[in-house]
C-alpha cells in the first residue's frame, strides 16, 4: 500500500511537471470551467423559475447536489478520463505488453498514470458551490453530518472508479470503441438531479442496478443532515461490491488478452 502511494506521488509529480509546460492555457481553462458551472446553475434557475421543489428537494438542496456533482466530475476528468484513450491505444498497438511487464499492478497503472491537473479547478468550484448552498440555506452541518458525508463521498468515488473500469475493460474486446466515455457520460448525467425526481422502474434501476443514487444524492443528503445510517451502510456495501466486480472483470480480461501485432 505504502509503495503504491509512493508511485502515485511520482505519477503526480511527472504529470505536474509536464503540465507546467503549458501554463499559458491556464486562464482559458479557468474560464471554460467557470462558464461550465455557470451554465449548470443557470439551468437550475430555469427549472426553479417554474417550481419551488424538484423531487422533494428545494433550490438550495439542488444547488448543493450540483456542487457535489461538479466535484466528482472534476475528479473523473482529473484522474480517469485522461487514461482512457491511452489504454485503448495500448491495446490497439500492442504496447500494453510493456504495462504488463512493469512490476506494479496493471489495473492501478492504467488507471492513474496520467493526470490532468487543471481539472482540479472543477473540484474547487464544486466545493465552493457546496459551501455557498449551505450558506444560502443557513445550515451548519454537525460533526456527524460531515463524517457521514466523508464516508459516503468516498463510496461514490469508489463506485465511479469501479463503473468506469468495468466499462474501460470492455476495450479488450471492442477495440475500435472510441465512444466508451460517451456511454459513461450518459449515465453520469443522471446523477445531476435528485434521485427523488425519477419514478417507477427508472428509479429502481438507478438505485439498485446502476447505483446513481449513491453517487450524488446520498452524500448531498448527508451534508444536509438528512442522512440515515442504512443508506450510508448500503453505499459502502455497494462500493465494495462494484470494486470487487471491476477487479474480477479486469483479471478475466487480462487472461483473454493476446497482444496485438504479428
Amino acid at each position, binding site marked *: 500500500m505504502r509503495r503504491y502511494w509512493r508511485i502515485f506521488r511520482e505519477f503526480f509529480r511527472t504529470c505536474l511537471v509536464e503540465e507546467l509546460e503549458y501554463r499559458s492555457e491556464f486562464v482559458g481553462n479557468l474560464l471554460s470551467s467557470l*462558464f461550465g458551472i455557470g451554465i449548470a446553475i443557470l439551468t437550475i434557475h430555469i427549472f426553479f423559475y417554474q417550481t419551488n421543489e424538484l423531487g422533494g428537494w428545494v433550490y438550495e438542496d439542488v444547488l448543493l447536489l450540483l456542487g457535489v456533482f461538479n466535484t466528482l466530475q472534476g475528479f473523473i476528468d482529473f484522474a480517469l478520463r485522461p487514461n482512457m484513450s491511452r489504454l485503448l491505444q495500448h491495446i490497439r498497438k500492442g504496447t500494453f505488453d510493456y504495462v504488463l511487464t512493469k512490476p506494479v499492478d496493471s489495473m492501478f497503472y492504467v488507471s492513474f498514470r496520467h493526470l490532468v491537473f487543471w481539472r482540479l479547478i472543477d473540484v474547487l468550484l464544486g466545493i465552493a458551490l457546496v459551501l455557498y448552498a449551505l450558506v444560502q440555506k443557513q445550515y451548519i452541518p454537525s460533526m456527524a453530518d460531515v463524517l457521514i458525508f466523508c464516508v459516503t463521498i468516498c463510496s461514490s468515488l469508489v463506485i465511479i472508479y469501479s463503473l468506469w473500469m468495468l466499462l474501460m475493460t470492455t476495450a479488450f474486446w471492442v477495440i475500435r470503441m472510441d465512444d466508451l466515455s460517451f456511454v459513461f457520460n450518459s449515465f453520469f448525467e443522471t446523477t445531476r438531479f435528485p434521485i427523488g425526481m425519477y419514478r417507477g422502474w427508472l428509479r429502481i434501476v438507478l438505485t439498485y442496478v446502476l447505483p446513481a443514487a449513491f453517487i450524488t444524492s446520498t452524500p448531498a443528503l448527508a451534508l444536509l443532515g438528512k442522512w440515515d445510517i442504512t443508506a450510508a451502510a448500503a453505499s459502502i456495501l455497494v462500493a465494495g461490491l462494484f470494486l470487487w466486480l471491476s477487479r474480477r472483470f479486469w483479471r478475466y480480461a487480462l487472461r483473454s488478452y493476446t497482444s496485438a501485432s504479428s
Partner: protein
Amino acid sequence: MLHKYVVLLRMKYVEMFAYQLATIVWMTGAMVQPLITMLVWMNIYPEQEEAFIFYFAVLIFVERMTSAWDVWELEREIREGTFSYQIVRPFHPIHWAIAENFVYKALFFVILLPVWGILAVFVPALRFQLSTLQVLLFLAALIVAAAIRFLFSYSFGLLGFWITKVTAVYGMFEAISLFLSGRIAPLSLLPPLIQKISLYLPFRYMIGFPIEIVTGSIQGTAVMYGFVGAMSWLLFFMIVLSLLWKAGLKKNQAVGG
C-alpha cells in the same frame, strides 16, 4: 452541377457505411440529456406529462436532423493542413460538407420514421394529428433550421484560419444556445425577457421554431414572423460565410509541406 452532386452523394453514402459504428453512435448520441430534461419537466408539471413527452421527442428528432459537426472537421483540417487539398479543387469544399450532411440526415430520417411509428403504438403521447399545412410548414422550418445551423457551424470552422481553439468558442455558443433554442425548456416556459431575446437571435430558428409549429404553440402570424426571422438569419449567415471564405483564402497558410 447536378451530376457532380450525384457523384458526391454516392461517395458520402459509401463512406458512411465504412464507419458504421460511428454512425450509430452519432445517431443515438445526445439523446440522454433531452430525456433527463424531459423527466425534470414531467416532475414539475405532472399534469402535462404527455405534452412534454411529445415536445422532447420532437426535440430529439429536430436536434438530430439539424445537428452540425463541420466546425470540428474544419478545425482539424485547417490545423493539420489537409484543408489545402480541398481548396485547390475546382469545386467549393462546402459541397462535400453539404452532401455529407444530406446523406446522413436522409438516412436518419428514413430510419426514425418507422421507429416513431412503433413507439407511438406503445406511447400514446407520441400520436399526433397534424394538418397538411402544419406538416409542410414544419418540414420547411426544419430544412431552414438545418441550413442555418450548418452555415453557423461552417462559418465558425472557417474562423480557424485566424484563431486556434475555434471549437472551444463554438462550445460556448452551443451552451448558451441550450437556453435560447428551446432545448432546456420550451421557450414558453422561460422568463419573458429571455423569450423576447430568443426571437431576435439565430438559435431559436435552429431548433425551437420547427417544434413550436408541430406542437401548435405558435400559429398564424407568429409562424409568418418566425419564417421572416429564420430567412433573415439564413441570408445573414450565407453572406458571412462567403465573406469569411474570401478573406480566409487570402490569409491561409498551410501547415506542413
